[in-house]
């Protein structure tokens, strides 16, 4: 058991370690490991305006996606739970899981078709990008919430609260939300990770000034290896930032 885990962790960590080594390497061509030692790649990224802008854009889009997802998913999951008939619940579940099944490319083409028209010239706007991320990330959050609601026996807890004198709003704020806090935090971390790493759709619908970090990073892959490695390391930092940020925000909001 233990060595299987060790092997798997090595497999996971190896590329990251290589990237880390490569990002500090002076040059890396046709050798197993890079030669020389330098910090210039990081300094170059820092000096590059488009990378800096993309970094902050990614964080903003990620935060906005998380907030919007929570605002939509919590009432949505609750409504599915409250839906009278089994069939309605099953149909709605299928519907909200659909974006997972459809390739983001399909959604991207749809966005381009609709929002590059004369009536709706919004392609490239950051709110549209956020909307796209929400569409793709929502199923993950929904799935966690719906499963959690089902096993919580929320009905009995709400009935108890109601018998004690709680109206709908009191029940929702005092019972439903706190009961869902664990799955909400877990789901939001997933949404954040998804938003930070999303490339397919973002590459199609982001404007030149609203490009997120992964889209800009693609440019780095055409340059020096060290530069690409450093750029990718920054993306990892960004992902960790997004995940911890959303987790902390979720915990603070739950408390």
């Amino acid at each position, binding site marked *: 058991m233990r060595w299987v885990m060790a092997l798997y962790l090595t497999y996971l960590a190896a590329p990251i370690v290589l990237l880390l080594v490569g990002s500090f390497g002076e040059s890396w061509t046709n050798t197993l490991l890079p030669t020389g030692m330098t910090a210039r790649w990081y300094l170059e990224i820092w000096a590059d305006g488009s990378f800096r802008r993309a970094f902050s854009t990614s964080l903003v889009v990620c935060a906005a996606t998380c907030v919007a997802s929570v605002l939509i998913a919590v009432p949505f999951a609750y409504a599915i739970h409250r839906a009278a008939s089994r069939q309605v619940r099953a149909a709605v579940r299928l519907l909200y899981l659909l974006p997972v099944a459809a390739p983001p490319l399909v959604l991207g083409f749809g966005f381009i078709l609709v929002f590059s028209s004369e009536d709706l010239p919004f392609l490239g706007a950051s709110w549209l990008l956020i909307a796209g991320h929400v569409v793709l990330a929502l199923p993950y959050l929904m799935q966690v919430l719906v499963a959690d609601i089902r096993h919580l*026996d929320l009905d*009995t*807890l709400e*009935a*108890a*609260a*109601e*018998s*004690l*004198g*709680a*109206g709908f709003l*009191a029940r929702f704020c*005092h*019972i439903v939300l*706190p*009961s869902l*806090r664990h799955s909400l935090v877990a789901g939001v971390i997933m949404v954040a990770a998804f938003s930070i790493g999303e490339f397919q759709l973002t590459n199609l619908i982001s404007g030149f000034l609203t490009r997120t970090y992964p889209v800009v990073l693609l440019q780095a892959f055409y340059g020096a290896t060290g530069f690409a490695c450093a750029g990718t390391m920054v993306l990892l930092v960004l992902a960790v930032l997004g995940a911890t940020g959303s987790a902390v925000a979720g915990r603070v909001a739950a408390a």
Partner: protein
Amino acid sequence: MSIAVEILSYRYGPGAGGIDGISLTIEPGEFCAVIGPSGCGKSTLLKLIAGFLEPASGTIHLAGEPMADRPPRARDLGVVFQNYALFPHMSAVDNVAYPLKLRGMAKAERRRLAGEALERAGLGGFGARLPAALSGGQQQRVALARALVFKPRALLLDEPLSALDAAHRAAMRDEIRAVQRANNIATLHVTHDQEEALSIADKVAVLRDGRLLQVATPAELYDRPADRFVAGFVGAANLFDGTVRGDRVETAIGLLACDTRNHADGARVTACFRPEAFKRESLGPNQFAGQVVRDRFLGSMRRLDFAVPGGTLLAETAWRGDVAALSLPPEAIRLIPSA
């Protein structure tokens, strides 16, 4: 304050379960147990009174006030649920303080009252614990304290003891009764456990298929069951169908001497007698010779299946020796008219 329901009916759907024309009054301070097999409608009755279901017809009055169109939150009832339904993210004291919070009480005041309620329930040091860190009995006490802390008009208990193990159940029974007495509050207690109902309640209502069969004190229910079903459901009973012949009843196990004054000659009846009514002395007219086919030792007594010509009798005796003959005093036999 009293609970009064009149000709209350509810259907879950065409052909599905529900209740039919139930009328029942529980006086202030009275403890009423509702029993019946699963699906008899006892939980439905509780949900209707609590307001979780809307009756198809009939009325519910609490303390004289009609409850129609009143949502559960405005009925002011203390409800204890089967699995207690404590809020898992709130500590014991917060659970108990919650109804007071909803009533706009200041934080310090409500925490003090909730703390006192827990103290009375013997949970003084457990206020800060989450429900998951409490035993079943302790959760039960928290749930009871929460249901009573806001001085509700009445108390509804939905199988509150079914999640406890047998050892705690009996003790908790007495505790619930004591708390109910101390609060002097009209109480409806739903249970499938007839022994629990008999031991705890002032009066017991027996439900079957959504209908109320009998409401009576525990002793009356046991001694004078209204029909064959109640006789068989409440306690163990010997039930033999027969026909009245003068001052006797003709049954499969022979002619039984008993009080037939209220029954016409030739009427179809069921003879009902309890297992503990048998005597070992051969006295009186109803003598049975036979043999023990099953012997269950229950400590304070033995419960015997006693095979006699024509049938098997269920008998209880404290005697440890052999049993070859039993007698049954005529006054121990109660005749129930066959439907």
